[in-house]
Every structure is written in C-alpha cells, then in structure tokens.
C-alpha cells in the first residue's frame, strides 16, 4: 500500500496545477499508480482498467479548477472520481455472471502449504470481497488496500465516519463467515 504524500506537498502542487495546468503532470506522476491499481483491482482487466484510469485523470483535469481543499487529501477526490467511473462502467457493461464465476473460483482453490497457501487464501478473500454489496466492497478496498483513514473514506463515499466503520465491520464479518477461520 503506498503512503499518501504529506498534506503540505499536496496542497502546494494542487494549487499550482490550478493556475498552471501543465503542473497537472506532477499530480499524475504522484497518483497514477495508486489510481490504476485501485481501478484494476475492481475491473480485473487491463484494457478496462486503462480506459477507466484515462477517464479518471481526464475528468480530474477538467474539474481541477473547481477543486476546493476541504482538509481531505487530494487523492480522496481522485478516488471518488475513480469509484464513480468504475461504477458507471459496471452499470453499463459488467455481466453479472462474472461475480458468480469468481465466487466459484474463490471457493475451489486448492489447499497449498504455508506461504503459497497464504497467497491463495488472500486471493480467495479478495474474491469474496468482490461479492459484497458495493458500499462494503468500496469501504474495504479503501481501508485495506489503499490504507486510507476512515475520515477520508467517508469523504470519498459521501457517508459519515460511523457509517464507514459499520460497512467495514459488516464486510469483514461477512468475509470471515464465507471463507471460514482458516487464517
């Protein structure tokens, strides 16, 4: 999980990017990998991940002039765009069978030993996460994969911190029930 840059750096770069659009390249360099991996983890397809990532940054470029620092990391705003773009894509194109297929794969993984088994276990867990209701899924990805603070996740999702905590708790409980206590 990549760490977020300090608030000071971020604000300065964002402000500069507002006045000088070319400075947007710095923001792109800083956040590209995080956003790409986030999108990829949802799409599981390189071409789709590339399309959505392009969309995210194009939208960010178009709207950065309207971006206002509310004390949240700039990345939270990018994640918000990414999340909406991913969901738009799901709504328009994603076949429902994929999720079921993935669940089958998740449950049928062979029992490997030690580390190999652990990696396999992780794949199963994250495959189960993808079967959770979307809000639980997003809250878990942003917390466990992106290492974001509850408050920032709440900002991305437009929910209260309490609601995010509840989503995470429910998500984790559901995952544990599904995969069993094998870890």
């Amino acid at each position: 999980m990549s760490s977020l840059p300090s608030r000071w750096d971020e604000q300065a770069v964002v402000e500069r990017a507002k006045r000088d659009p070319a400075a947007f390249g710095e923001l792109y360099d800083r956040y590209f990998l995080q956003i790409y991996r986030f999108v990829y983890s949802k799409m599981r397809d390189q071409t789709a991940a590339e399309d959505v990532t392009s969309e995210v940054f194009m939208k960010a470029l178009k709207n950065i002039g309207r971006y206002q620092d509310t004390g949240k990391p700039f990345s939270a705003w990018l994640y918000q765009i990414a999340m909406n773009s991913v969901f738009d894509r799901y709504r328009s194109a994603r076949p429902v069978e994929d999720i079921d297929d993935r669940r089958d794969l998740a449950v049928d993984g062979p029992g490997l030993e030690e580390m190999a088994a652990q990696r396999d276990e992780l794949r199963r867990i994250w495959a189960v996460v993808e079967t959770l209701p979307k809000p639980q899924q997003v809250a878990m990805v942003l917390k466990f994969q992106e290492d974001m603070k509850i408050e920032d996740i709440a900002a991305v999702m437009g929910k209260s911190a309490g609601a995010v905590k509840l989503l995470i708790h429910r998500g984790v409980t559901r995952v544990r029930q599904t995969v069993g206590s094998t870890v």
Partner: protein
Amino acid sequence: MMSARPDPELDAIFEEVGDLEGREFARWLHAAPHPAAGVEPDPRFRYELRRKLLQEASRRSSAGPWYRRLLPSPMRLAASAALVGLLLLALAGIAVFSNREGSNQQVLVQSPLANSKLVALAQPITLTFSQPMDTASVEEAVSIEPATKVTYRWQGDTQLQIVPENQLAPNVRYQVTVKPGAKTTNGVPLQKPAVIAFWTAPTPPPTAAPPTVAPTQTPAGALSGLQRVGPAGQVPPVWSPDGGTVYVVGPGGQLTAYTLSGGSQVIVSSGVSAVAVGPQGPAYAANGEVVYGEEKLQVAQPLAIGFQGGSLEVATTQGVEAADGSQLASFSETAQDAQLSPDGEWVAYLGASGNLHLVDLRSGQDSQLGPASALGAWSPDSSRYAYPDGSAVEVVSQGTAAQVATVPQLTGITWTSQGQLLLATQTGLDLMEADGSGLMVVAQGSFQTPIWAPSGQQFAFGRSGAIWVATLKAPASPSPSPAAAQNQFVSQFFSDLENGQVSEARALLGSQAQQALSGLGQLLSGAMLRYYVVLSQPGTEVVRVVSGQGSSETATDYTLNLVHSSGGWLIGGISAHQLTDFGSGPEVLHVAVSQSQVRVSYDSDLNPTTVSGVTVQGIQAQASYDAATRTVILTIPGGLTPGQTYTLAVTGALQDISGRSAEPYQLAFVGPSSGAGSPTPSPSPTG
C-alpha cells in the same frame, strides 16, 4: 501467518463491539499484500496518457485563464472591473496580494530520479526548484544518505546538479534531503525538508581486470568463406532475420539487397540514410521519409529505425517517435547518432557532448553513461550494450557500465549469436566473452564495423570501401566456472522468491533447509525489495535481503550452505541474521576474500582515519582505504590459513564522512585454498 500490523482506527471498529477475533482477522488482512498490489501498468499506456493529459492541459491553458471559461459573460465584466480596480490599487503603491510564483509561494523541489529504481551508478542527481534559490544556502542544506562526496553544479538558480565524486554504490537506497535552511533569493526558506529517494541498479556482473595483455593467437582456420558483397557507404549493413540477405547502403545512398546464395536487387537508388529490417521486410529513411512496406512517415532528421512488437519506431536527433506520430521519448541532448535495441524497448544515442545515453522507451528515462568514441552494439536479447571509449570496451548491463577490455585501434563491435563480443580492429578480429575473459585473435587484417548475422556463424564487415561477409567458427563459450555456476544457482533461488514462485524456490532446498526455511517467514512474505550477494565462497553464499516500505528498510543476511546433488546444486542449510538499524551508518555491501587480503566494500564514503574499525578477529592486518571504490582493504602479512574459519568484525569506530558510526557487524568466512577459485562441493545432504 504474516505479522499483523495494528491500525488503531481499524482496531477500534472491532474492539467497540468486543469482536477480538474480527480485530485479529482485520489486522492480518491489513498487513497482507492485496493481490493487485503488484500489478504493473503498461509503461507505454502510462506515458501516452501523461502525454495526452499534458497536451490537453496545454490546450486549455492557451485557451485562456480557467476562471474566464467558468464565469458567465456578465460576471466576466464584473471580474474585469475588479481587475482594473486592483491594478489601480497596485499602481497607487498599495500591496494587495501576489499570486505569482517566485514571491512568497512555497518552494517545490523535484528530481527526475525521485522514486526511480535501477538508477545508473554514473549519474548526477538533478534537483529543480520552483523558485530562484540562494545557491549557497541550498548547498549548505543538502545532505545525502548514504554519505557521499559530491560537488555542486548550478544551471541558473533553479536547477542544481549534485555530482558524486565516485560512482554511486550499487543496490542502495539513496536519500537526498534539502533542509529548511535552503532559501529563495527573496529569503523565503523551505517550510519543511524536501526528500528525494531513489534506488541504484544492482552490481554489474563481476568482471576480471580489463585485459590489456596480448590476446592468445589465432585458432587455425577460424575464418572462412570470405565473400565481397558490394560497395560500402556510410550506413552499416543489416541482415535479414534468416541471415540469407544483407542490405547494404552504397556510397550514394543506394540500398541494395544482396542474397548470399547469389543475386542482388536495388531497392532504392539513392538518398538512404538509415535502414532496418522488420517482420515485413526492410524499412529505410530517405529524403525526409521513413518507408516500411506501404507505410510512409514524414520524420525530420531520422537517425535510426527499429521495431517494437512489429511496429515501426524511429529515433531522430530529438527523441524517438512511434509510427502513429506519438513521442516515445525525448532526448536530454541533441543526438548525433542512435541505435534502437532489437526488442525496440531501448535506444542508445551519442549526444552532441560526446556522451553516450541509454533511454528506456517504456518509462522515457534517459541515463547518461559517460563519454563514448562511437556507438557500439546491442546484445541480441537487448539486455546489454557494448560500446567503445577510445580503446576501452565498455559493457552496460542493468544500467551500469563496466570496462571489460582494452583493445587498441578498435574500429567496431558486434555481438555473436552466442553472446560473445567480436571486436574489429585495424589489424585483426578479436573475440572474447562479454565479461572480457578469453580474449583471442581470430583473424589478421583490417576490419571495420562488423555486424553479426541474427543466426549462425556469419558476419558482415567493411574493408577497403566494400562490405564483405565471412564465416567465423567461434569457439564455444566455456562452461561457467564453478564459482559462476554457484552464483547463478543462488540467484535463481532468490529470483524465484522475489517473483513469488515459492514452490520452485523450495525445490532447490535440501530437507534440513526446508525445515529451516519454515522459520524464516520474512523471506517468503513477498516483502523483498532487493537482494545482493555479500560474500561468495566455495559452498557458502551470504545474501542480503532488504525488505520494507517507503523510507523504512530492514535487512537480513542469509547464509546458504550449498551442496552438490545429482542434479546440480542444492541448498543444504540456511540461517538468518537480521542487521541492527540498517542504513543508520555505513553498511557493508560486499566482502571479497583472497589469500592475503580481505576487501570490504561499503555503501558510504568513509572517513579514512577510522578504517581501523574493520578487523579480522585474532589476526594482525593492515587496514587501508580505496576511496574510489569505498573499499577497506585488510592486508594480512603471512596470509590466511586455507580452510580455517575467520570472523570479519566491524565496530562503531568506523565512520562515514558525515561522522555516522557503523553498527557492529560480524561475518564468518573461510581462508581460501591457495590458487583455488572454485567452490569445493560439500557432502550431499542426507535424506
């Protein structure tokens, strides 16, 4: 089970409802890497998207200020009125505010090396400041870890080049910090330290001292089938992939295909300045166009043509362009000549300054390697580049150049299909391994610009104004020495672990090592950042594995006892020793043991008066320091006793040039047998 990493926020969610099992599970999941964490995007996509975004940003910028497009017309009028008001206030001498860069804005510090991996060792560190800086205060405020002697070069007052006195150390995380003492020319200080981190490339493959000795004499009958092909021009010839045809550009730029079985065909009658052969046949540059089958591209000043995945790419004096007109890379200086790698993912170019550059076309990173007298040749697998610097032959591997041989009157270099180097000189042809070993003369006479055929044993060369081909029965590459085979085996083990191929790595372990490995979870956790060999002796290798995240790195030395098995090598035993406070002071990078010397290389420039902090326990040794290689040399009068175990000991008395003390460190090694350089196999493991 992976170690759980507590996150108070996450813990609280479960503790509030008394769900401690849930908390443990959440901790574990939080610490475990997500399956998508290692997904690497296609670098071309990353580069292309960046280019499009900046193009769009630039278009928007030139369309006028952003606020103008956001405001409806009446508001624009109001804004204009407000602007006029502000101007009047300013003219009246009243300070209102300044939004300009360079006044009281925060200072941004950037570097092209920031977060780069595999950084070349001969590399200045460039810092760019967003505002004009007071250069003296910046130089005072810069610090580098590991401690490195540097000089400073400024371009204007916004760009600083930090030039290391010696090459950077391999396999090291460097951190350059500009402390808040740095000020702008207006006296505005940095508000907090600016930190730039990057990682250097691994150690170049071990090379013998560059051989300047006379090569061994010509094997009888090595060269045969000498055949004149056609008149030579300025452009080197190229081979068809099957080695049956040579494409030669003649003196007037006439491109002709010569079939070795007989026959020729003129493809273009004049003006050809570059040629390459792709899947669909030859591509050439002539009269401002690059032509490849039906494709025609308008390209200004093409220097070289190549192919990436079957698609055309063209190197010009300014960069590399793809067939769709997109820019794959921009050169940091104007190129005089260029060569694209066989896989089309790299370009070597000779800059106007006489320096050779290698550019990774996947990331666009341009690494300057140093002076070169001409371009050289890419290895067939594109992993290495050999080039001449006067009579020195340099080979670049994994971002680092190493001199492998000195060959007077050098006129050209090519790689054979077996991975050896064929060197043309004004007096003959020499052949050697890529590390400079086994140098031998294979033919007498004058040879220029040799070009090896993609397969087989033929090569083309220039002589007396013509292109010739000949067949060279190159001696087979000697099988790797036992020491090299041992290193290769150990590399395989760690490479498997690094790539997550745990079962493949396990297959290289004996039963005792299998058991030992179970207790070394860190090695299997997938958190490995890099590894390198600290000590290699027959039957034993000490490999350092560096793990961690961000600026926090930890290191563990793994000692591997190697044994011969029926199928080759096997790891009979493995033990681990975690280093204390890794990176807090000078760290040992490599230890080389000979009968009379122990050479200990460091990552930091050391204070030479403190090298007595490095000793061999129980032995009187004279310590000296080679600053160029950051190596402490312990010379042992009377030599080491073969087969006896010794302990290298480093104490806190050893300091780097910044005064930071080394953490205590010990390493066991064995006195080598006289004249022996090969590993002695240990008994096979039982069971």
